[in-house]
């Protein structure tokens, strides 16, 4: 089970700004280990974010996104106390969902 995401959701004026730090190897499949074997690709392929159940972002990623991915975006129509939920799914079908309250 992957480590939890760190999510900070704060009001910046009338918009909610969301900053996420995910925990994931984002292995490209290009790297070789010490023994010379190719380390297989293992990376987040899709990300989605919802606000009170309504989608506010979705993304498709490739392995060129850095290890332990960082993501920041902002949207209108939110207020403190609302919930933001982020889900990622990787190329092995592993998935993780975390949420945060907007401060």
């Amino acid at each position, binding site marked *: 089970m992957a480590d939890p995401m760190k999510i900070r959701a704060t009001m910046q004026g009338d918009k909610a700004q969301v900053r996420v730090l995910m925990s994931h190897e984002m292995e490209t499949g290009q790297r070789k280990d010490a023994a010379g074997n190719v380390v297989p690709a293992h990376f987040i392929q899709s990300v989605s974010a919802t606000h009170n159940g309504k989608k506010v972002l979705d993304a498709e990623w490739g392995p060129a996104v850095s290890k332990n991915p960082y993501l920041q*975006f902002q949207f209108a129509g939110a207020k403190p106390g609302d919930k933001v939920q982020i889900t990622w799914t990787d190329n092995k079908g592993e998935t993780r969902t975390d949420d945060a309250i907007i401060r």
Partner: protein
Amino acid sequence: MRAVSATRRRLLKTSGAAAVVGVLVKAGLLSPRIAEAWNKEAFSARSVEDVVKAFGGSTATRTTEVSWGSTPEIAENGAVVPVNVTSRIASTESIAILIEKNPNALAARFNFPDGTDPAVSTRVKIAESSPVHAIIKTADGKYFVASREIKVTLGGCGG
């Protein structure tokens, strides 16, 4: 309801899985959202033209209506390069980031529903100094591209 089930059963018996999914999507029996898989064609593409084609577009018009924010011109560590893109083009629906010289050139595509700013910050791997392109799609199906060069002092893709 019975007619629908009979069609589905006949299709599933006579066709391969991929063909069935396609037919079911066209027949309106299966939501395209469920059928959407990771866009392998786009993530294998190496040029702006090929990425836009893989997205279903034809050409991308060059634009300067994009802010690169805190994106550096010289990255010290190619494994972790901050990229911050904001589109100033009206009705922007998505922004894709393409790192031309990478073995994995298309890094990400972000889709913005109404109410979300067409702007994103993330961090990407850049293997060697490269043109980096922001490919923007607007609600009317048009594509635009803005580019800048990012130099890398320590390459970011592997071993």
